[in-house]
């Protein structure tokens, strides 16, 4: 985003304008789009410097880096939009290492014809989300593709963060006996997005849980960092996918308790409508943490003291299991496996 051209005299027509191919061609029109929408919305010294890359100073230590692509449809939904997801989701992947997120980058792929007003709205919510999180978007890129070769806008964000000294969370770190805690009610994001899907439309007051979790993580790490084995944000595939991944990576099983899992009645009802299991539904502001038994109390207390962890719940334990099964005691009283969903046919939710 290195274009700074004042020679462009006509204003962007945000209200009625659309992105056209000239906005991606490397000329003045592109510079105007980037300045008039992205720089304005993200507003920071790094972007204003107008280099091909942005610079920052770091102390020695362990850093983490992550990236995610966002292709959610529809682009706007109650509680957020593709832009807030792109900020929160990448911050969360950084935070899941226990790290302090520092900076984000953003790559936009925009479909010809996309309304400038929608683009501005997305950019402004990204700016707001990034300011609220204290994690600036310091570098970016814009491409425009022909109509019919994208779906409105796709955003890929990357992020870097710094891990507090002494902390080293790894996917294979869970041990039999460890506790599994979820930070709040599950399925809110996925159900919200699906409720707005054409042909699936239903009405509900549920809103996406999209949120940046690094603040919550910081209090957890402070409370009992040495006892946290690993953290995951259960996005695509829901907590079912997350627990199965951890089970396979740590080579153990989980026993969880259906009754302990926080679930909003409307989310449960929407899942009945759709024939879905809430365990398979995506979240964008929740985390699953595996904690050594000694740390459970402290971590849970810290979580519950944070607005994003008020409903945190201990939902089960890791067990030795060569088959890496995630088993659940159903609220009905029986037992079952909790598996990855096969060949999901859902709308894109992140």
């Amino acid at each position, binding site marked *: 985003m290195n274009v700074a051209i004042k020679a462009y005299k006509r204003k962007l027509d945000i209200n009625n304008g659309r992105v056209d191919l000239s906005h991606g061609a490397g000329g003045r029109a592109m510079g105007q789009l980037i300045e008039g929408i992205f720089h304005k919305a993200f507003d920071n010294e790094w972007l204003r410097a107008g280099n091909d890359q942005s610079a920052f100073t770091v102390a020695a230590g362990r850093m983490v880096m992550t990236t995610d692509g966002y292709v959610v449809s529809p682009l706007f939904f109650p509680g957020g939009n593709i832009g807030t997801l792109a900020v929160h989701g990448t911050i969360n992947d950084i935070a899941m290492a226990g790290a302090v997120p520092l900076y984000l980058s953003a790559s936009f792929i925009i479909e010809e014809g996309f309304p400038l007003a929608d683009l501005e709205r997305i950019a402004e919510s990204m700016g707001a989300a990034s300011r609220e999180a204290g994690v600036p978007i310091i570098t970016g890129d814009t491409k425009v593709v022909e109509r019919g070769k994208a779906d409105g806008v796709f955003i890929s964000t990357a992020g870097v963060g710094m891990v507090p000294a002494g902390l080293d969370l790894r996917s294979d770190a869970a041990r039999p006996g460890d506790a599994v805690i979820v930070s709040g009610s599950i399925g809110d994001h996925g159900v919200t997005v699906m*409720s707005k899907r054409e042909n699936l439309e*239903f*009405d*509900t007051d549920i809103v996406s849980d999209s949120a940046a979790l690094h603040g919550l993580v910081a209090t957890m790490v402070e409370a009992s960092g040495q006892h946290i084995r690993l953290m995951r944000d259960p996005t695509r595939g829901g907590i079912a996918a997350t627990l199965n991944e951890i089970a396979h990576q740590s080579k153990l099983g989980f026993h969880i308790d259906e009754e302990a899992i926080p679930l909003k*009645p*409307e989310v449960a*009802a929407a899942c009945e*409508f759709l*024939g879905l299991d809430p365990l398979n539904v995506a979240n964008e502001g929740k985390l699953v943490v595996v904690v050594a038994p000694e740390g459970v109390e402290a971590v849970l207390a810290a979580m519950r003291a944070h607005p994003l962890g008020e409903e945190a719940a201990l939902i089960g334990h890791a067990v030795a299991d060569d088959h890496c099964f995630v088993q659940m005691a159903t609220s009905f009283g029986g037992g079952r496996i909790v598996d990855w969903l096969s060949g999901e046919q859902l709308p894109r939710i992140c």
Partner: protein
Amino acid sequence: MCLAIPVQVKEILPDDMAKVTLDGVTKIVSIALVDDVKPGDYLVLHVGYALAKIDPEEAERTLALLREAAMGDPVLGDAV
């Protein structure tokens, strides 16, 4: 495939459609296959169509039977 759920009618709409609800989730469905649907009724909903009304008294009777059965009383069912 035969997934169906009990929903309550909120509002009758034109063209044999109705707004139905389940715990705060609302959807518009067809009631063309069921006669005399009124707001407040409970319906069995399948692929966007109501297939049957739920009879509240019979539902209560089933639960009563269940509770009796749970206590060891003979289950009578409804021999037809």
